[in-house]
């Protein structure tokens, strides 16, 4: 006990001020990045739908969609960060919910390249939105890291939910979830168009 107290006192006496990073906003950037994809339900619906659809399609789409999406999304984010305008972003994001939800609801089984192309096109819209909405004062690096991780986690959630298709009733439930996602997307699409 005495030794522990002495140790704590010694640490307190030896305290020095940490420099910290010269670049500010590291923590706020990470948190903002993590929260951005889950802060908007339109993003959440589409990301979860990507995972669900991947699970429905099975290998190799199961892993190719989550590998391809962050890369293409980052390209969209890159365009947003450097100020390249992209028209109809909100419509594109809402449409992604509608179509990806429909793909799950109808258990659409297109060729792999078509699935990848569809997901990639929508990934650009989502990434662009993330890139342009970087908050002032936040670190670009940790913000990027945050939203890539959060997006990946949403895909993983979709894939995990998609595992219910091992059971017959699970397959049906999955299609219902797809339908609900599509309806949610339609709601956001209506909002974006009006």
């Amino acid at each position, binding site marked *: 006990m005495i030794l522990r107290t002495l140790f704590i006192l010694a640490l307190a006496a*030896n305290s*020095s001020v*940490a*420099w*910290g*990073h*010269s*670049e500010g906003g590291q923590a706020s950037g990470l948190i903002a990045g993590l929260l951005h994809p889950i802060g908007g339900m339109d993003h959440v619906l589409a990301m979860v739908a990507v995972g669900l659809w991947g699970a429905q399609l099975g290998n190799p789409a199961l*892993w190719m969609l*989550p*590998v*391809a999406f*962050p*890369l293409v*999304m*980052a*390209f969209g*984010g*890159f*365009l*947003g*960060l*450097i*100020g390249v305008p992209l028209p109809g972003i909100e419509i594109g994001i809402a449409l992604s919910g509608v179509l990806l939800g429909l793909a799950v609801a109808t258990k659409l089984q297109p060729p792999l390249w078509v699935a990848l192309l569809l997901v990639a096109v929508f990934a650009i819209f989502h990434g662009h939105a993330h*890139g342009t909405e970087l908050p002032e004062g936040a670190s*670009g*690096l*940790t913000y*990027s*890291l945050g939203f*890539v*991780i959060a997006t*990946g986690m949403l895909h993983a959630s979709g894939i995990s939910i998609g595992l219910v298709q091992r059971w017959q009733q699970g397959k049906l439930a999955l299609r219902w979830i797809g339908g609900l996602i599509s309806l949610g997307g339609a709601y956001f699409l209506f909002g974006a168009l009006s």
Partner: protein
Amino acid sequence: MLVVLGVLPLPSAAHLVSTGLGPIYDGIGHFFLSLEDLLPLLALMTLGGLNGVAAGRRIMFVLPSAWLIGGILGSLIAVGTIVPAYVAPLMAIMLGVMVATDAQLPERVLTGVIGIVGSASGLTTGIALATQTNNLQLILGSAIALCVLATAVPALVIVAATSRPWMRIAVRVLGSWIAGVGLLMLGWQVRIS
């Protein structure tokens, strides 16, 4: 793209946090607090792990050595030298894509990649740290930390990638995340320049 990159005048910045324990420990802390420097090396170590046990062993020895040589050279030649800020993001993109595609490289090519990336990373850090007093001790500390990482990361990846198929896929997804973050780092550099 080249035109955009060509007009990026920002110097690369290495971050240091004072641990209060001296320059060696400050150097050890460098990688754990400088994500932009760690990211491409993390991708390289992961790639080494995906390429098997022999490649993992190669990473263990070649990467810290190349980094240390680059770091010392950088700190010696550095005064007034500006390292473009896009070096680390470009390396992260390239290596992240290689991890995502599970690139199986021939032994010599992989060794060359480790040497080039390691020395380039060391060089940029060495140049950025050149104005610090005790910069060689800082570089030595960073190289020690890199030795630990270059031993642990490929070993973990080898175990993960060979244990279950989905773990290998998870590692590849991690590669796509690294490439994605690299691309966004690049965009960020363009934005603030």
